[in-house]
């Protein structure tokens, strides 16, 4: 019998290793680039500053974008509503973490 370590698939932690362009993010979420620009302008997702004119995103923004798209579609809320929901979810997460440290 082979041990579980044999031929295990290896992958990097996406959030810590990936830098995405607007185009990457658009393809990965199957959503129009213009929609993502609106997300950035509304503060739903954040671009990281790099030394070029193009926007770049950390890998963590993929999960955030997908979450925003799901909320927008499933809850039929507008952009401001999505931004608010994400902020409140962040706050909830922070409070739960604080609870754990007590």
């Amino acid at each position, binding site marked *: 019998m082979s041990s579980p*370590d044999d031929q295990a*698939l290896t992958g990097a932690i*996406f959030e810590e290793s990936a830098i995405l362009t607007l185009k990457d993010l658009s393809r990965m979420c199957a959503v129009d680039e213009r929609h993502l620009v609106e997300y950035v302008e509304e503060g739903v997702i954040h671009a990281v500053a790099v030394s070029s004119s193009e926007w770049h995103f950390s890998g963590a923004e993929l999960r955030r974008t997908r979450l925003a798209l799901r909320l927008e579609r*499933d809850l039929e809320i507008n952009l401001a509503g999505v931004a608010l929901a994400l902020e409140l979810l962040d706050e909830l997460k922070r409070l739960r973490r604080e609870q754990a440290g007590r």
Partner: protein
Amino acid sequence: MEFKDYYKVMGLARDATEAQIKQAYRKLARKYHPDVSKEKDAEARFKEVGEAYEVLKNPEKRAAYDQLGQGPRPGEDFRPPPDWGTGFEFSGAGGRDSDYSDFFESLFGGQGRAGSRPARGAFHAGRGEDHHAKVLLDLDATLQGGARQLSLRIPEIDAEGRLVSKERVLNVQVPKGILAGQSIRLAGQGQPAHGTGTAGDLYIEVEFQPHPLYRVDGRDLYLDLPVAPWEAALGATVKTPTPTGTVDLKIPAGAHTGSKLRLKGRGIPAAAAGDFYVILQIALPPADDDKAKAAYAALAAAIPFNPRAILGV
């Protein structure tokens, strides 16, 4: 096949108006959306509600569904009537990423979904779609790293163009130091390529099962450590479990319940590893025999102590 009472699922009367249907959906969606809900069975309930809404919000589908009446009596099997679907036009059935019940598929599946899905693939011709899955791991997976057998549910389009979810078991090396909410990207493990393109990637988002001893805050770990009153008062060296094994921990004299001791770098590993925090909890020995009672009485006589002084009584 089980008949689905979509009106009941949404808590609506059969003569509900479009506005009422929309309102009911929004309320239930907010309550059960898996991204925001802590309700039990949120995901299953949300799917059910989404499916009911898909039918009731669409006048053609709703009219066709209403023709079925109240469905068979409880326990009886449901079959679509032989003339089902004639005279109705179901356009744009698909679009959502959730999989529907057999009941829904038998009534509204097929044409709409089959028509709408390939359009999405064609949008990025050649490349297979990325797949996303979530897994629940033990905390040891991130503390030590190592291979884990993961069972994933992957959405797939079957031969008839229906969205089904299929089980896939993968042996995956969990990167040491991965945090809850982060994902492992497995290049080329998503949907196979269309023709000459490249395969999509697979993203596995991890969450951790609650650990019996440690609480997690980011990269830091917390442990409640019981100590005897004299260990806290006089100071002592006591054994404490840590993720890397049992260590001797020095308790400073005058410690109290809630005192926080830090073991640097013994949290979740990384270039800047998290810390391990020990929170002291003073445990009282029971006074269940004469000797213990005498010891407590001697303590009371020796030390004038009013624990309620702070309350002004």
